[in-house]
């Protein structure tokens, strides 16, 4: 099996743009939070980006909604960081795995239709007519899950082939897992892997509010929330990683930040203690001996406490950072962001080995072990 290394990170979120900005933010301070726009739900909003810098054509920008633009922008940063952006031949054989949900809706149209449906003589026909008349034809392409990958192919020329994984947090872990396995086995040499999430959307807030998963008080650390009922704060952001075999990186003179020593994921039937047990199992499977943990803890009651207890057992001396306390919960992008931060700490000499955890808010448990390159 071949070693798999990270040679490029592209990261945007409420904490800024680029790996350095995020490592600085990780060292201290409180996250950037917007408590007003979706009151009573705080969100961690993406910083304002100059889209032109990574998505040069306005026509491309117009075809994308924010979740795609965040992802496309982060993908461009990753390609730059890996020294791959100008190498068309390399990008032409670069494989792509994206972890994605779906895209934004037209909220005004939805509201108008719901208002009109109440008085409509024939609601079904009214719905048909309004959808046909009011939906922007290209909006569908901004909603389709696999069109983040499609946009990355178009804007950045990454055209080996793309696959889009869905399924909330787990999709991020499994995207990294499958990419790593394909490189390690020799099937492929180089991958762009990652995801993005737009939290500043009432439709995603609606889904998680239905399930009573959202934190509705001022920002508090994820570790402190369970004692006050628990809940997650969604965050906007995007993260892509360039992964390649050690030999491939060396041959093209790319400097690895860290190695991905292992990725483990599973799903437990959730009951008290199952998350704690799952983390012990994943950690054993990976042979993890980290001196730093990047936790994807959500702040949700029960599972957050179980993760904290498990981490205390697994790594009594390790420093523990929560991505939720840096950028918020970014769902499909959460595991890639954790890996990016871990790689940054290792590359900067602040850690020798890192464990990234991803306990899904509802299902799915994953962990990724990073070591020095």
């Amino acid at each position, binding site marked *: 099996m071949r070693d798999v290394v990270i040679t490029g990170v592209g990261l945007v979120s409420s904490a800024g743009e680029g790996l350095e900005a995020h490592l600085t933010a990780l060292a201290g301070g409180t996250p950037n939070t917007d408590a007003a726009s979706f009151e009573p739900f705080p969100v961690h909003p993406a910083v304002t980006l100059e889209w032109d810098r990574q998505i040069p054509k306005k026509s491309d920008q117009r075809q994308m909604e924010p979740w795609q633009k965040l992802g496309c922008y982060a993908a461009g940063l990753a390609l730059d960081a890996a020294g791959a952006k100008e190498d068309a031949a390399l990008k032409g054989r670069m494989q792509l795995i994206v972890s994605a949900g779906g895209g934004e809706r037209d909220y005004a149209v939805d509201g108008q239709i719901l208002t009109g449906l109440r008085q409509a003589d024939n609601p079904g026909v009214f719905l*048909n007519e309004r959808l046909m008349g009011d939906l922007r*034809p290209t909006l569908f392409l901004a*909603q389709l899950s696999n069109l983040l990958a499609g946009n990355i192919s178009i804007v950045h020329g990454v055209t080996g*082939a793309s696959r889009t994984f*869905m399924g909330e947090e787990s*999709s991020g872990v499994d995207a990294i897992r499958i990419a790593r*396995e394909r490189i390690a086995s020799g099937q492929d040499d180089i991958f762009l892997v990652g995801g993005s999430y737009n939290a500043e959307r009432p439709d995603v807030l609606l889904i998680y509010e239905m399930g009573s998963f959202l934190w509705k008080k001022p920002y508090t650390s994820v570790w402190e929330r369970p004692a006050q009922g628990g809940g997650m704060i969604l965050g906007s952001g995007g993260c892509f990683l360039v992964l390649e075999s050690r030999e491939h990186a060396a041959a093209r003179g790319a400097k690895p930040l860290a190695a991905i020593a292992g990725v483990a994921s599973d799903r437990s039937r959730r009951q008290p203690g199952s998350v704690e047990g799952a983390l012990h199992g994943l950690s054993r499977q990976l042979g993890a001996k980290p001196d730093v943990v990047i936790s994807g803890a959500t702040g949700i009651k029960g599972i957050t406490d179980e993760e904290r207890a498990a981490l205390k057992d697994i790594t009594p001396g390790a420093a523990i950072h929560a991505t939720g306390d840096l950028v918020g919960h970014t769902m499909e992008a959460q595991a890639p962001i954790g890996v990016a931060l871990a790689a940054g700490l290792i590359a900067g000499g602040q850690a020798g080995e890192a464990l990234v955890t991803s306990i899904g808010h509802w299902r799915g448990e994953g962990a990724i072990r990073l070591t020095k390159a």
Partner: protein
Amino acid sequence: MALRDKQGRPLVAVTGMGVVTSLGQGKDDTWAALTAGQSGIHRIERFPTEGLRTTIAGTIDSVDVEPFCAPMLSERLAMLAGEEAVGQSGLASSDFPGALFIAVPPVEMEWPQREALAEASGQGGEVTYKDLLKAAATGRFKPWHDLFIFGTVADRVADRFGTRGSPISLSTACSSGATAIQLGVEAIRRGETDAALCIGTDGSVNPESLVRFSLLSALSTQNENPEGASKPFSKNRDGFVMGEGGAALVLENAESAMARGAKILGYVLGCGEKGDGFHRTRSSPDGMPAITAIREALTDAGLAPDDIDYINAHGTSTPENDKMEAMSCTAVFGERMANLPISSNKSMIGHTLTAAGAVEAVMSLMTIGTSRIAPTINYQVPDPAIPLDVVPNVARDASVNYVLSNSFGFGGQNTCLVFGAEPKLMY
């Protein structure tokens, strides 16, 4: 027979198959209807169609779910296909010894749910998402969180069959079903598992998804004669017809399948894929990505173009796809393309979207197993620009050892699979 391919990887055998389409439940019924040239396309009765440009589809109306919505129907179709496939394989029906790879349509909350939330909010004036959020806060709608997140169909299917590990839900648009199979093949070849359950499912014919395709001018509007609307490769083709379906394949390491005495239905010999960065919905004018995907699949299978006996086409019946597919096949197969049978199941069951690659994989293997090629129906007006042997209108008996199945999708997705009765002998 060697149980490894030319590259030394484990051979991947198919030991179980299941399918449900608008033509029927189960692969035998569906295959009988397909080879009889029957169409499953009909007028939509599930919801009012007044005000729509397209009023026909290949919906599956015989399956009831509650509440009726795309994720529930997609889940049910996956279960039905999975039960047939796992049942045929002889593996444990609820303790499947491998991973799940499932192509599912992207889900979101639908209009009946939005309306229920709007009503529960008590808002008498203009409804906004603030009102829906207020209703959500009551806690009365808790089950809808689970119902409308992306990982739920896979989670429930994984529970039902007891598959191992983290199930993978995926989308590569209209090639998703093929990608699910490809992921299973790769996992077996890497030695991570000896078995994989690969499923494609799509039960998403609802007003909004139909309108979305309609607004992209992708759908046929020839509503007068529903059975005749899907006309792949015909000169008068005018778009695809949405269909629903589910299909499942049990893939196994051939060595372990033989060791347990399983009946082998065929082999997945090769997979090929290539991205296209030309446009969001159109393919590169030179056809290079599709051509590359086909060539990669043949190379991966250890076959030459001359080995292929039949092509199960993507054949959507859109002007763009069929022209591009014909051009790409001609580039790979050359002059032989004039006589190499290529037919489209979509002429009868419509485009089952996320499920299509898996449904058509099952049909490709049925072609091998029964030595019979299903026709392309509604082929009355040949397109002189794409002279092909589309097996027009009537099924044909033929000895078929190797099949190429094409799947292409929005977002530059091109995935091709090669199936065989046996692997090609090594010298």
